[in-house]
């Protein structure tokens, strides 16, 4: 990233006759400061001069890595839904709990909406977000033109970010294990490990993701 634009300049300096000199500018999403959008080398970071927000942090091969990680996480999520999550034993009784079971825990009567919300926050929204990321970035990774409505898919993925709570759920599981400990013996099942792994993979993928780089690449590939 070059420099922030000096305050002496006005819009006539910034905009030539074609009107698209604006494409060479980039504004900080947090504080609105203008910067000249020069190429940032892979592995380097460009920060906003005023507020310090990381504007661009491109990485070599990031697209491919993100697609592979997101795909792996999505597959693990599907596996985690159906396999037994926790196995409970107490006084000769035995019970297997799955993720679906936790979602349906609220399903009788007036608690139904909460059941839907837990299902959305823990499974549906994280899965939708992962698939939207694969849909947007897979063609980029192969060097193809963006898929139809890729922009909409990526906006959706970014919008879902705060609402995809798989990692909060896994901490909730840990707390629940401690609460049950005195009452029964609990053994984590296959789905528990799948879920924990997908949380780690999702976090790793998000550190590779540079939102502004993705948007710039989308725009470049979309251009004829």
């Amino acid at each position, binding site marked *: 990233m070059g420099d922030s634009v000096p305050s002496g300049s006005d819009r006539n300096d910034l905009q030539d006759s074609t009107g698209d000199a604006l494409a060479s500018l*980039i504004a900080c999403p947090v504080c609105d400061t203008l910067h000249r959008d020069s190429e940032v080398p892979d592995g380097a970071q460009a920060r906003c*001069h005023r507020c310090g927000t990381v504007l661009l942090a491109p990485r070599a091969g990031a697209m491919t890595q993100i697609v592979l990680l997101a795909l792996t996480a999505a597959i693990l999520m599907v596996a985690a839904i159906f396999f037994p999550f926790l196995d409970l034993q107490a006084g000769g009784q035995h019970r297997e709990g799955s993720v679906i079971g936790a979602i349906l825990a609220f399903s009788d009567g007036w608690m139904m909406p909460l059941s839907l919300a837990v299902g959305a926050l823990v499974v549906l929204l994280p899965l939708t977000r992962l698939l939207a990321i694969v849909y947007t970035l897979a063609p980029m990774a192969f060097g193809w033109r963006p898929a139809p409505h890729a922009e909409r898919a990526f906006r959706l993925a970014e919008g879902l970010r705060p609402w995809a709570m798989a990692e909060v759920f896994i901490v909730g599981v840990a707390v*629940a294990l401690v609460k049950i400990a005195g009452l029964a013996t609990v053994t984590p099942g296959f789905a528990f490990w799948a879920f924990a792994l997908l949380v780690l993979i999702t976090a790793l993928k998000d550190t590779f993701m540079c939102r502004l780089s993705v948007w710039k690449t989308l725009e470049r590939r979309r251009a004829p």
Partner: protein
Amino acid sequence: MEDAGTAPGALTARAAGLVACTQCGRVHPLGTPQCRRCGSDLASRDDTSLQRVWAWLFAGMIAYVPANLSPMLLTSTFGRTRENTIIGGVFELFDHGSYGVALVIFLASVVVPIGKFIAIAYLALSVRSRGLARGHARQRLYEVVEFIGRWSMIDVFVVAILSALVQLDFIATVKPGVAAASFALSVAFTMLSAQAFDPRLIWDSYEVEET
């Protein structure tokens, strides 16, 4: 830059008569309705931002009241039913010697929600009255609020897991209480409140001083 909260001589998109996309950083002539790069709706400043922040914040605070007064968890062991509020659950964990977990739940269900109410109200108020705290400090606060809000959902998930798992007829059964729903709503409303806040407003308050 460290002290004033602004780089000397930096120009904002608004001051240049432009409108920037907060999703992708693309800059457009003022009046452009949608971003050419990503298709997001554009607004130089979101005029309704503060109104929505306050509306969601009050909704979140209202929902937080029944969340603390009514039971979160109904536990029946050997035919005896016990009701636990959020705070009751924390004390119970503490009594059992699970200090770490008690602390996690206390932070996620009490400290973070109340801290968020105060922080969001402070941010929204500080937009109007200048010179309260440096831009960097306020932005840091905003980032923390945005990051930490979702973690309050832990206790709701704990209740869901326990209710699903602990169904051992006579020995023990667990049912969710009313508070689970109102607490989940409170967290969601507060997250919406934080998302409605336009962080550019933090930095706008310095611009008047510069010129």
